């Protein structure tokens, strides 16, 4: 939406496509806050330190120059959001309040209760609505992207999209297209992501020649509430405000958490990482929890769960700063987290990898296609720090908008001049895909295939990766791909057919899942969120490089390119002591 606003400001008309009304997008789920080194707590924080924390937290895999620019721009982004009316929490002096988040020692995270993402999304949604009311933006909500229209010279001239009510496939001509299509949680079955975060658009683009980078870097958030339909996030801000992680020292201790005396609790993060304690980065915390549960066998009552405890935080602070997330816990579990420690377990949360973009203006390798937000790869390296995603998507969108507008202006021949044949050809191709899915008389249910996909990915391609398991996972993914060809849609109607749309998404998910898996299989080292017990160390000599997946003749091909480390030389990453 930042991209939309910027393009509209540049005086260029925008068509905005979204599966759900944009106000219902996944960013509403971001809870804890947004980082910017405003140094408003007198700690001597600087944008250089934010930059260093981000690169170090990402285990040196991010190209550095643009990350530096993002950290420098972050304070201005907070100011802008503040001007847009975001109800950030305030200090007694009326200034914005800041809290601590993982992977830093500074209070750098601005927040609006525990629903910061919702508040930021709404502010941008309101500005987009204002431009819409002025006629500068036209919204196509309830439409899903199917494919780019690419001419014979390899230049993008528009898109095809399907109206999710009429199920009509239409082409839209455009000089430039920006993708802000978010995460890929659905390929892991259950995750903290929203239903629409399938990665379908990224995968469709990949299959049209848009490269995909660092796909194997998947963030598993340490604290989620397990659920059959979704893993609901319990924000890092709970720990930023003083929440502590622990398990009973005695294995299988069945007493309720609040009845276990202090001396019988094991605060494992504080003990293992004395400097950062409960605020180590997410990859570290997640692996620590796995170690507690699977190696030390200290999971709560022998199950895969540990405590996240906020009961010692004053009620008034909880109400003012964490209400949004505590409410979620209470509503979905029927237990009051102000009294009883919360039971949590890691859950797939974010993809650091995504569409390959250049290091200047968010352009992909296909002329006319840009990407910003979680769907692209470039700001978080091998592990994202908490509260950096909101800043990266707004910064990236803010770059992509003007870049796309400039590109469109400088085009010698606009998209209108493109041969109309290319639009008809692409629409027909997409209509035929729909028809094929609707008429296949197979035996496979798409929901069942999807559950299988989620199980394979969660078991083998999240926290711990072992090569022989990855190989087996890839073979199973190929098997699912074959089963997908024998699909049977239980709904063949032509009106608001959610089954058809889901089947299309599923086809794309199966391919993207392989990009993630093969990337993980190839990378024989451990870096950030990518952990292989057989290769436990980071290997800069061989693997300080970006994975760049390409689609060549219907096959996934992995290539590698060097990382720009021009600003901060790589050094070992440890969180048991200060950097």
């Amino acid at each position, binding site marked *: 939406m930042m991209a939309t606003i910027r393009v509209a400001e540049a005086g260029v008309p925008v068509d905005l496509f979204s599966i759900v009304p944009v106000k219902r997008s996944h960013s509403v789920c971001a809870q804890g806050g947004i980082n910017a080194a405003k140094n408003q707590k007198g700690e001597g924080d600087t944008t250089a330190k934010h930059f260093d924390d981000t690169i170090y937290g990402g285990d040196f895999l991010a190209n550095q120059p643009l990350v530096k620019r993002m950290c420098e721009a972050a304070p201005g982004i907070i100011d802008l959001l503040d001007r847009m009316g975001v*109800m950030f929490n305030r200090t007694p002096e009326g200034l914005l309040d800041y809290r601590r988040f993982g992977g830093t020692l500074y209070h750098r995270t601005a927040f609006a209760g525990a629903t910061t993402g919702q508040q930021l999304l709404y502010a941008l949604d309101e*500005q987009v609505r204002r431009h819409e009311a002025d006629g500068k933006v036209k919204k196509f909500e309830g439409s899903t992207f199917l494919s780019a229209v690419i001419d014979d010279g390899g230049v993008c001239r528009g898109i095809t999209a399907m109206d999710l009510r009429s199920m009509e496939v239409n082409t839209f001509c455009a000089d430039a297209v920006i993708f802000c299509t978010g995460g890929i949680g659905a390929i892991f079955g259950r995750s903290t992501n929203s239903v629409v975060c399938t990665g379908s658009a990224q995968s469709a683009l990949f299959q049209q020649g848009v490269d995909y980078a660092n796909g194997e870097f998947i963030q598993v958030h340490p604290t989620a509430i397990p659920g059959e339909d979704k893993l609901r996030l319990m924000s890092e801000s709970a720990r930023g405000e003083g929440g502590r992680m622990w398990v009973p020292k005695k294995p299988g201790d069945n007493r309720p958490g609040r009845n276990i005396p202090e001396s019988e609790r094991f605060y494992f993060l504080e003990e293992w990482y004395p400097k950062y304690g409960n605020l180590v980065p997410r990859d570290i915390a997640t692996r620590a929890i796995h170690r507690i549960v699977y190696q030390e066998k200290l999971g709560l009552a022998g199950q895969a769960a540990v405590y996240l405890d906020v009961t010692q935080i004053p009620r008034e602070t909880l109400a003012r700063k964490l209400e949004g997330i505590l409410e979620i816990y209470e509503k979905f579990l029927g237990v009051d987290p102000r009294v009883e420690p919360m039971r949590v377990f890691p859950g797939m949360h974010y993809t650091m990898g995504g569409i390959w973009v250049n290091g200047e203006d968010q352009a992909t390798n296909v002329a006319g296609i840009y990407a910003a937000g979680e769907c692209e790869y470039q700001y978080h390296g091998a592990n994202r720090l908490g509260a950096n995603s909101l800043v990266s998507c707004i910064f990236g969108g803010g770059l992509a908008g003007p870049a796309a507008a400039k590109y469109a202006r400088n085009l010698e021949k606009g998209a209108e001049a493109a041969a109309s044949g290319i639009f008809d050809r692409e629409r027909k191709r997409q209509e035929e895909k729909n028809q094929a899915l609707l008429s296949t008389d197979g035996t496979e249910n798409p929901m069942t295939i999807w*559950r299988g996909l989620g199980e394979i990915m969660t078991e083998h391609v999240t926290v711990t990766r072992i090569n022989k398991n990855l190989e087996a996972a890839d073979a199973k993914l190929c098997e699912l791909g074959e089963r997908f060809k024998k699909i049977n849609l239980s709904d063949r109607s032509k009106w608001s057919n959610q089954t058809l749309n889901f089947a299309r998404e599923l086809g794309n998910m199966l391919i993207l899942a392989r990009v993630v898996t093969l990337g993980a299989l190839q990378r024989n080292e451990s870096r950030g969120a990518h952990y292989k017990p057989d290769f436990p160390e980071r290997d800069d000599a061989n693997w300080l490089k970006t994975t760049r997946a390409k689609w060549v003749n219907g096959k996934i091909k992995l290539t590698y390119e060097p990382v720009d480390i021009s600003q901060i030389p790589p050094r070992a990453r440890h969180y048991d002591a200060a950097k």
Partner: protein
Amino acid sequence: MADAKQVIVKVKRQNSPAEKPRWEEFALKWRPSMNVIICLRDIAENPVTRDGKKTTPVSYESNCLEEVCGSCAMLINGRARMACSALVDQLDQPIRLEPMSKFPLVRDLAVNRQFMFDSLKRVKAWIPIDGTYDLGEGPRMSFEAQEKAYPLSRCISCGNCLEVCPQVNEHSNFIGAAIISQVRLFNMHPTGAMHARERLLGVMGNGGVEDCANAQNCVKACPKDIPLTESIAEVNRQAWKQALFGWLLG
């Protein structure tokens, strides 16, 4: 298996706005912590009714599944609420699922709530910033003012407050509590207050705040506990002031 616990769900189905509605009943396998979304997903995986008839998966809207996106509002046992936070163990069975009745039907449980987004345009629910370029920090705001405004900013546009409002019906254009509360929110903001008049004009006249008949159903139906009736009273007061003294204030 006789002892396997079942969940009985009745869904009001309608293939398209032009067709007639019908009811279908499903028997699902009970699991702990089930919610209505899980029920609908079970049906999608095996779309067979309780009496063994093949049918289609149920159309419905959903996204975040943690009650913050506003998508999955529907009538559950007659009550307007979010499907994701409707836990099966807390519902009487058979669980009856119906689409919201105050919005145009799309299919099954999916409705079109565009009216709400259009209304946000009508009342100019935004802060009119000069541009996204760097103009320094926003206005300072007291701790207390933020604490008062923040709950209003959590409105998810689910439409439950419209669904339960007797004033929202085929004879009226009442914009509803959610939108009126947004007017209050933006009029509270230091920059937004400079444009309060425009917003109040948007909420006056046909379908505006004076159409509220004080049934107070809205505040009970709000999943985010927004003080909607307070907002209506406050905006009503502002609108009267605008109507009476607007010519003086310019």
